[in-house]
């Protein structure tokens, strides 16, 4: 029989207001196994934990039940307290009488009654608890960063600077990401390339960083400290060791009609290409869908002109398998497709563009060489309308329910840059709210209005109406004047919502990292663990976790890096002891459990058993405790009832059921 101590927390008035804690203490004393019960103002405080230690000693406790907040909050705290008092930490159970009781019920009788039942269930469970001991696993001292945008680059640089090896896997031919497509950055208006390119070069040159560009993560297995990852290096058809990056092949390539991804489809590129001039690595790839050689077998011009002999049409995809201790997801974002917003005439008019397309139009290396012009006729615009929140803050299935966060600032930036460079161009911004929290952000927006004369109109646009004369009639609300405005514009720029990169769901599935309904990766804790995934060993960097601008991305990248470094600095990790195990006498080696195990943690061994005096060799399931994550799928699948889960055993759960139904 256990000797159980029950500790009921008031949590100030959070619990005590709707649960009569004294009554709980009084009632629970008579439960089997309970030898001590007390209440205290704040059990999680140092004094509260001290009370546990004293009680363990005084009453020779073997098990502890804390009736308090959610175990997701303080289970670890109380386990550590128990451990300090000399108990096995897994002899502690929490009865959640705050989130699951006091906070949702108003009536004190009802709350007290429920708290007692929850406490009873926890006592019933502890009666069956056994000490558990975590195992150890090793840590591979190398990190993987998935995604080579500013988030991935910064994370990799910070990890590498701390002395650990780190690989970046980037699916496009160059690192740089969306930031490389931007012209200027807010709120200081530095040129994006000027601040990004040096970082790209640093990453490429760093002796601890290895770049896998034009590569994708194919398969992930293992667990924190010991991941095994297959990386597919897609065939570039260009030998990176031989290529000098002279660019002659791109110049001579006769297939030049493929929309350039880098220029957001506003210009064309050749079939053999580097996405942009500062690409890293400066090694082109052949787009086989566009290449005449691949489509017809004729051409081969690039091979002929390549003095270095780097073109190799026979190259094949290659799979590289690497080991990592930690993985950082930095897959970034893209703008949403605007097919659900045809009232803004994006698909009907070339002069309606997204803000990211405007970045390319404004950029000297872009399709118009930095001249602001209408894409339909090349004419200089005189009247430009910006529309905010296109696809953001939409709860109607057409767009995204969240605020994309960066649009207010980049629109102010665009408006300001245009008014600065082309003072004769009028700029109107239709906005719902201007959201510019951040250092020097609101000042920046106000400068656009006060110094640059940008006309901000509070109200959304209903429709953009292309006119026969080529102009665009913008029909919008002016809510402050209570008017419907019709404004003739030459160009319309849509602040298009951003969404996580399309591949993130696939990657999250491989990593068993959780993801929310908007495809943003979920943090382990929204406030206190914002750069970690709930899956151990997986970290988050940049927009894959939620919309953010460059300064925030860089900060988060650094935070993710230090978390990775903290992990890699350890030689050994403790593993979760709540794992499955098979009862050797009951197991018949049928393989059902191995079939349902998502981690491949179960294998079979021929073992000598002594079944009530009968000695024989049987095929028996063996669980690898380092691989088992403790989901329990096998325990239910097992036809003979041999499989059970430590910490959540059949008997423990049944005891809880019985206690609740009593």
């Amino acid at each position, binding site marked *: 029989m256990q000797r159980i101590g029950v500790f009921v927390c008031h949590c100030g008035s959070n619990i005590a207001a709707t649960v009569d804690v004294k009554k709980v203490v009084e009632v629970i004393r008579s439960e089997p196994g309970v030898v001590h019960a007390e209440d205290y103002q704040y059990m999680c405080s140092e004094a509260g934990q001290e009370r546990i230690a004293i009680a363990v000693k005084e009453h020779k406790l073997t098990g502890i039940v804390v009736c308090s907040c959610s175990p997701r909050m303080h289970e670890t705290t109380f386990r550590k307290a128990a451990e300090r008092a000399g108990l096995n930490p897994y002899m502690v159970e929490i009865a959640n009488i705050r989130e699951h009781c006091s906070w949702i019920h108003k009536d004190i009788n009802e709350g007290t009654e429920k708290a007692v039942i929850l406490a009873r269930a926890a006592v019933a469970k502890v009666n069956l608890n056994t000490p558990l001991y975590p195992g150890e696993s090793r840590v591979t001292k190398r990190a993987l960063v998935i995604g080579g945008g500013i988030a991935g680059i910064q994370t990799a640089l910070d990890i590498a600077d701390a002395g650990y090896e780190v690989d970046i896997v980037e699916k496009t031919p160059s690192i740089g990401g969306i930031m490389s497509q931007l012209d200027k950055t807010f709120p200081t208006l530095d040129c994006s390339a000027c601040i990004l390119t040096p970082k790209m070069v640093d990453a490429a040159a760093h002796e601890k960083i290895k770049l896998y560009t034009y590569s994708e993560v194919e398969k992930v297995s293992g667990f924190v400290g010991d991941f095994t990852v297959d990386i597919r290096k897609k065939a570039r058809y260009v030998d990176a060791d031989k290529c000098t990056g002279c660019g002659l092949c791109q110049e001579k390539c006769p297939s030049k009609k493929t929309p350039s991804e880098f220029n957001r489809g506003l210009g064309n590129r050749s079939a053999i290409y580097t996405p942009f001039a500062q690409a890293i690595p400066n090694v082109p790839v052949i787009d086989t869908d566009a290449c005449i050689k691949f489509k017809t077998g004729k051409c081969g011009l690039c091979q002929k002109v390549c003095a270095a002999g780097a073109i190799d049409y026979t190259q094949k995809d290659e799979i590289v398998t690497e080991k990592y201790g930690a993985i950082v997801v930095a897959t970034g974002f893209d703008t949403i497709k605007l*097919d659900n*917003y*045809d*009232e803004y*005439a994006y*698909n*009907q008019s070339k002069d309606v563009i997204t803000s990211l397309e405007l970045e390319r139009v404004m950029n000297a290396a872009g399709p118009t060489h930095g001249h602001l012009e209408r894409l339909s006729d090349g004419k200089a615009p005189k009247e430009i309308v910006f529309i905010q929140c296109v696809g953001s803050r939409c709860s109607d*299935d057409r767009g995204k329910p969240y605020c994309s966060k960066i649009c207010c600032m980049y629109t102010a930036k665009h408006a300001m840059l245009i008014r600065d460079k082309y003072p004769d161009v009028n700029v109107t911004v239709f906005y719902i709210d201007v959201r510019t929290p951040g250092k020097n952000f609101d000042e920046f927006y106000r400068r656009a209005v006060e110094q640059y004369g940008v006309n901000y109109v509070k109200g959304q646009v209903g*429709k953009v*109406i*292309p*006119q*026969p*004369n080529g102009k665009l009639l913008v029909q919008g609300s002016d809510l402050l004047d209570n008017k419907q405005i019709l404004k003739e514009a030459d160009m319309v720029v849509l602040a298009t919502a951003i969404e996580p990169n399309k591949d993130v769901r696939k990657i999250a599935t491989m990593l068993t990292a959780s993801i929310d309904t908007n495809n943003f990766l979920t943090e382990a804790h929204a406030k206190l663990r914002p750069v970690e995934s709930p899956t151990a060993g997986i970290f988050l960097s940049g927009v894959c976790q939620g919309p953010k601008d460059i300064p925030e991305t860089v900060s988060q990248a650094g935070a993710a890096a230090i978390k990775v470094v903290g992990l890699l600095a350890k030689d050994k990790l403790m593993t979760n002891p709540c794992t499955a195990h098979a009862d050797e006498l009951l197991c018949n080696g049928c393989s059902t459990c191995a079939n349902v195990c998502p981690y491949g943690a179960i294998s079979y061994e021929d073992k000598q058993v002594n079944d009530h005096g009968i000695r024989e060799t049987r095929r028996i399931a063996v669980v690898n405790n380092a691989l088992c994550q403790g989901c329990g799928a096998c325990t239910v699948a097992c036809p003979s009832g041999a499989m059970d889960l430590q910490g959540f055993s059949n008997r423990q759960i049944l005891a809880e059921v019985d206690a609740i139904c009593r």
Partner: protein
Amino acid sequence: MKYSYYPGCTLKNKAKDLDVYARRSAKALGFELEEIENWQCCGGVYPLGSDEIATKLSSVRALNDAKEKGQALVTLCSACHHVIKRVNDDMKNCDDVRERANNYLKLDAPYKGETEVLHFLEVLRDKIGFDELKKRVVNPLTGKKIGAYYGCLLLRPSGVMAFDNAENPSIIEDFIRAIGATPVIYPYRNECCGGYISLKEKDMAKSMCEKICESASGFGAQMLITACPLCMYNLNKSTDNNLPVYYFTELLAEALGVKEESEA
């Protein structure tokens, strides 16, 4: 192929052309429109109030009639299509409306939105196919520049109507291409003509239709086509025939070479 057919009040009267040419074209294309017996007027306007039942019953009767015959229900008039399609959606998805309507009607078997409601244009697109239609055209309207006028009722709300992209539709343009003519795309094609407002507020409807016609002409349309008698009426009132308006079925019959055919 046989479809149940709901003509609606106006097609028996002021909009006979819309009906007659549709029937002839259907015959030429090898499908039959079997008129629902004793159909009642749909009311012309879908009742938005969630507590309205009586005003939805005539549509339910027609829908149930088609269900009992195991046929899809075809409509021509935009307003009828709008009302019937939305009532059908209520019967399928709104427990309260379904329960109350069925309690009232006491049908042999309760109606639960089983009938497929198709606009004639959807039959052409989804059942016949515009490629097939193109093959059947004997008298292509080559060179004609036609603006499609959708109006509001066919397209909105897009979730229920599921007719086409409500902001940038293409079904009538594809139809125009199939009969050999050239579609003219203009931005006001899905803006309202004023609808019923023209009874009492003639100027309001007129100014709305002027915008539509001006935009269409501006983009080079020589004529407009529509599926709705009320749109037709409102547009005609404001164009002074500078921009003639036709029912799409009339051009269809012409292209199929059955316009002049006497009804057998």
